[in-house]
Structures are given as structure tokens and as C-alpha cells.
């Protein structure tokens, strides 16, 4: 039989289709994961921003989420340092905020990472739930000192991210 040109093209197209289908499948896992989280758009944003999400399973996606909480926490800690210089009168509340965000970055994030990697997701959920709580605590501490918070956007952002990641982790339970 002569060399079949159509058959080679067939093969190549089959390969192309397989690749496309599998890429779609990974997107599908991410979309399914984000469904049922408090903000699927935020969830997608977090996961798709990390190239590792393309090949990750559910645990991997949860770990990417925890990384996002960590990055947000570190960003907020820097913001607090800057605020302490420019807004001296907010010092007591900012000190409290620094404390609670250190709890997020130094306790909640490592605990959640360890728990996810070692397959005990229940402890990971607690860490993310607490991160959301700490954000609320920081926000509330301005009111307690009779001040308006300059960090509302950041605290809301942390609360949102932590709640989304917590919802992802709950799918592992």
C-alpha cells in the first residue's frame, strides 16, 4: 500500500485534538473547583494566575490557594510597615494588625500547607478559616480605637481569598 498522506494528517489531527481536549479537561477541573466557592471569579483569578494550576489535582489547587493567602498576608504586612510611618496616630491598631497577620503567615499558612501535603485536609481548613478571622480582627481593631480603618480594602481582600481557599479545601474533606 502506498504511503497514505491522509492517514498521517489524520494522526496529526488526532494528536492535536487530544492535546486540546486534555487542556480543556484541566480548565474543567479548575472551573469545577471554583464552582461553589464564595467567589468563583476570584477563585479562577487566583488559580489561573499560577501556571502550576494547569497540571494540578485538587490538592495542588488548594496549595496554590494557600500560596495566594500567604502572598496577600506578606503584602499586607508591608503595607502595615508603611502605614506605621505615615499614620503614627493609628499605631496601636496597626500593631495589633501586624500581630494577627503574622499569625496568618507564620502559623496558619505553614499549618495548612503541611496538612494539605500530608493528606489531613481537616487541619488545613482550620488554618484558612482562621486567616479570614484574623483579617476581620485587624479591621475591627481600628474601630476599637475610635479610628477609621485605612486597610479596609486589604482586609476585605484577605477575608475573600481565605474564604475561597477554605471552600476549595472543603472539597477535599
Amino acid at each position, binding site marked *: 500500500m*502506498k504511503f497514505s498522506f491522509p492517514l498521517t494528517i489524520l494522526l496529526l489531527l488526532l494528536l492535536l485534538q487530544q492535546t486540546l481536549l486534555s487542556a480543556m479537561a484541566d480548565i474543567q477541573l479548575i472551573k469545577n473547583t471554583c464552582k461553589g466557592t464564595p467567589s468563583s471569579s*476570584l477563585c479562577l483569578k487566583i488559580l489561573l494566575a499560577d501556571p502550576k494550576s494547569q497540571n494540578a489535582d485538587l490538592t495542588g489547587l488548594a496549595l496554590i490557594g494557600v500560596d495566594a493567602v500567604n502572598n496577600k498576608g506578606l503584602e499586607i504586612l508591608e503595607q502595615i510597615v508603611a502605614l506605621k510611618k505615615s499614620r503614627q496616630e493609628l499605631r496601636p491598631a496597626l500593631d495589633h494588625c501586624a500581630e494577627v497577620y503574622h499569625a496568618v503567615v507564620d*502559623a496558619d499558612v505553614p*499549618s495548612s500547607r*503541611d496538612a494539605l501535603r500530608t493528606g489531613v485536609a481537616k487541619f488545613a481548613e482550620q*488554618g484558612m478559616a*482562621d486567616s479570614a478571622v484574623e483579617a476581620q480582627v485587624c479591621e475591627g481593631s481600628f*474601630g476599637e480605637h475610635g479610628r477609621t480603618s485605612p486597610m479596609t480594602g486589604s482586609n476585605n481582600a484577605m477575608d475573600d481569598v481565605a474564604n475561597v481557599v477554605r471552600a476549595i479545601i472543603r472539597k477535599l474533606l
Partner: protein
Amino acid sequence: MATDLEHATSTIYSPLPDSDNGYHPPSSERRRPIALLSGIFLSMLLFSSLIALILNQHNQHDIDHVKSPLVKPVSRGVSHGVSEKSNSQLLSSDVEVYPWTNAMLSWQRTGFHFQPPKNWMNDPNGPLYHMGWYHLFYQYNRDAAVWGNITWGHAISTDLINWYHLPFAMVPDQWYDINGVWTGSATILPDGRIVMLYTGDTNEEVQVQNLAYPANLSDPLLLDWIKYSNNPVMVPPPGIGTKDFRDPTTAWLGPNGKWRVAIGSKVNKTGITLVYETTDFTSYALLDEVMHAVPGTGMWECVDFYPVSTTESNGLDTSVNGPSVKHVLKSSLDDDKNDYYALGTYDSISNKWTPDDPNLDVGIGLRVDYGKYYASKTFYDQNKQRRLLWGWIGETDSEAADILKGWASVQSIPREVVFDRKTGTNILQWPIKEVEKLRSKSWVYQKVLLEPGCLVSLDVGLATQLDIIATFDIETQTIEEADAGYNCTTSGGSFSRGAFGPFGLVVLADETRTEQTPVYFYITKGSDGVARTHFCADQTKSSTASDVTKLVYGSNVHVLEGETLSMRLLVDHSIVESFAQGGRTVITSRVYPTKAIYTSAKVFLFNNATGVSVTANVNVWNMDSARIDHFPLGQH
């Protein structure tokens, strides 16, 4: 098709020999059907790939189009709204964190329950008695008040009440436990050697079982431990997930003189108990069949397997079996965070355990404790010939509060476990007798008549560390049917009044009872006229803080003909352990009052039943604190 392709490639460079002598239709005609088919197939493929591409792009567009996250209202820390628990009971995702003060938080530390000075603790490990000392090891995080970096903490005691903290027994320093030195159990061999089997989480997050033993058996403190040089000794077998293989039990002797160890696991949603055999504790053989399995129960953690005598009141060594012996099989269910057990018989020849009542099999029947309680483990106390039970009591407040106060979790007071000869269908758990040595002043109240709606304040001095024993007399013959569908957990707690209940004690209550923790009996009568007794602990008003768990815990409890209703409470700051009918039903609660603390805490008797009066007899003891300290090693 494949062979054609092979031929196709091999003929690329060598034209077909024109050797056919048969009929040749014109070549264009011959190729037409194949070409047509391929063409159709190709265009279908192209078309579907194109569709896939377009769809994908469309999805990407969807993603890009959505803008910033939802706008949320700013929360105020002080106001009390709908709360969320960052422990396992969830409500909404709006958090109102109570402004806990240092006074409130430091009050929460217990006076006579075992807990390390700070940080996170979970499962009790390897309890044993050796050369005059009781040893307790436990899962511990040396870095934070949340779970992580798990090491083995170590403490010793001569009386299971007053403890000395010792240095860590084991830390995660080997590839096979670098991600956690997890739960394990001790086996004391007939020649006195101690063998410790524990789960290690490896550098690749695989759960394996490792062997460790004391460096010096004649050291009563068992300070140093050696990990076997060829660990791990058991790795997940085929068919078992690498993250579904943990918590080895104490070993028991099989009929052929070999030792057997059980490890919980699961296959799909069926919880199982794997059993390994060994002679030297270094090489193991997995038995073909599991000891037992219960579908739908999920992963079995912290499996415990031990004999109880059906005729005597002493405990039994783990290897004992025989005609007047039943075996308890217990498991901590990962899926619902509760400890379950069942009584049954163990056939050591076939290594099969069979429940006495399959309807009350492990995971679907009795719970060890109906409150906040997990990862429990027994050991045989050869010193006093008792079977003793430890249980991990976690926090039910928010993690934020745990991080603030710097610690999380306590252990229960050790309980003696015996077979309930009167009912034959459950075990009894009772606080060890040694706890009674902490009793100081006694307050006795006899024949207190409680009419419907009655509340009586009991003067007991400082009411934050108490041992209370109360009995209640009630006439139930008079009313026909009442509250047949009652269930502690779905009831409204002590405010739901019925004909025969609730009545009992109220502890950790402030004067106006803005905060209170009632523990009560509630009797119901079905249409058959048979009375059922429920035993509940009500946390719905235990605190004005909203970031704590506020459930009603409990279950029904057997009360036999002629038995008096009795309950015992160990109140110790933020923990209340409640025992009904001598330990037939047990409930452990964690409570976090903001007002009913220190000298403001009070005790009441109450009867909220509408149809009967109750006569109570109560004995309350103030409890001294235990001495829980670091061991003065310099002088050792």
C-alpha cells in the same frame, strides 16, 4: 489498521513492485472510496477541533471579563452578629470575633487536666506503665498553637493526675518521619521490653509504620528513644492509599505465638482494619483478610482493639482471649470526627472480629463520647490491673482565640473502662479513682425538691473546679406518652420543656444566667409506654461570645428497672466531662464563658419539666489543681 500503517511507512522509499498480475481497476477509481472516507473523517476532526478551540477561547473571555471581587460590608469586631466557627461546625462566612480579654483567656486553662504549658496538642500516644511511672506521649507542635511540625511530647506521672513534663521523646528527624512523627502505641513484651510502633510521614508524604524503643530500659523516665535503623517496618500495601495507612495499635499475641498489630484504613468508603503478624517487630506479614470492615464509614483513624472481661471488674492484658471475654473494636472516623466502638467476639484462629449487634457496628452505633472527643486510646495498666482510656479534647472556640491565648487542646481525665455487666451491650467509663484525691471541701444537698419550673442555687464556694455527683428521683408512671421523637442534638436544649424533662444541673453560670451550661436528663415515653432517658449537655447559652460552638450534645442512656438516675460532672474551667449512670453515656464539652468565670461562676439545680417534680441529692467537691510541671532534670 496498524499493520497497514507499518507497511505504509516501510513503503515510503520503495515503490510497490508492479507484481500484481490480477485485475487492476484504474488507480484513481481504487483510491476514491478511501480518499473520500479519509476526507470526511479529516474534516470532522478539523471541525471538532475548531469548535473546541473556539469554546476554549470563549471560556477565556468569560474569565477575563469578570471584574473585581464582590464588595463586602466592613465588619465591626465588637458587635455580636451571626457567627462562624473556625472549628468544624460552620454557619455563615461572616465572622464576629469576640473581644477576648486576657482575663477571659487565661481563665480557660484547666486546673487538673493534662495539657502542655503552651502550643498545640492532639492525639494521645503510646500510653504505658513502667517502673513506677505512667507515661503519656502526645502529638505536639512546638512552634504554634495550630497543628503542624508534629513531634512526640512526653510526660510522666505516678498517679495519672500530677504530671512532669519531659523533653520530647521523638522529633521528625528521619526521612521516614520528617513530615510528622504521628500517632502510635506501645507494646510491653513478656520479658519487659518496650516496643513502640508509630506512623511516620515520609519526605514524600507517604504514611509508613516505624519501630522505636527505649535507649535504656532501666531508666524509669524513659527519656531517650532509639528509632530502629531499618525503618520503616511497614509501608502501605498494594490497594491501600499512601495517605490511608496510620495509627498502629498495641500488639496482641495470636494463637501461633506470633504478634498481631492492627492498622486502620479504607477502601473507597469502607473503613477497614488491616492486621499484620510479626515475631520480632522488625519484619511483618500482612494477613490476607481484614479483621473487620464497615461500609460507608470512611477512613478509620486511631483504631483500638482490646479485651474486656464479662465477669470480672478488672482490666485485661491486650493479649487475653477466652470464653468470658469480649473484644472492643474502636475507631475514630475521619469523616465525622467522632470516636465509635462496638462490642463483639474475636476469633483469633481466623482473625475475625464479629460485632454482637451488626446494627450497632463500629461507626454506625455507639460513640465513646458524645461531645468534643477524638483519637482516644486505651492501654492495660498492669500496675493496678485496669484498662485505662485517654482521649484528645480539642478546642471549640476560634483558632484566632487559640493563637491569642497561645495554646490549644487538653487530654481527658483518664477513664477506667469495664464491660457493663448489667446491660451487656456497652462499656462503662469512669474517671480514675486517683482524681478524687483532688477533692477538698465537700458540700452536700439532700432531698432537694424541685417542682416544675424550679431553679435552686447551690452554694459551693469557688465553682470553676468541681467534682459533682447528683442523683434524681422522679415518678414517671403518671403520664401516658411524651416527646417520643426527642433527640438531644436537635432539641432546643434546656429551654425545651417537656412533661418529664429537662432537669439536672447548671454549671459555669453567672448570677443572672446570661451564660450557663446545663447538663440534664430528659425522659420521654413512646406510644408503647416504655420510658427512654436522654442525657444532654447544652452549650447554646454557654457564652455570650458568638465565635464558639453552641451545640447540644448527648444521647440516650440505658436506665434499668429500679436504677436511680445519676450523673457525675467534672468541671474544670473550659472543660466539663459529664457521666450518666456510672459512665454508660459520656459527654465532654468545651465552654468559653465571658462572664461566668472566676468567682462569678455558680451552680444551680433545675427542673424545667412541666409534668413532674424531681427530688435531687447532690454532693459537690471543690477540686484542687494538679501539679503539672517540668521535671527537675538537673537533679535526675
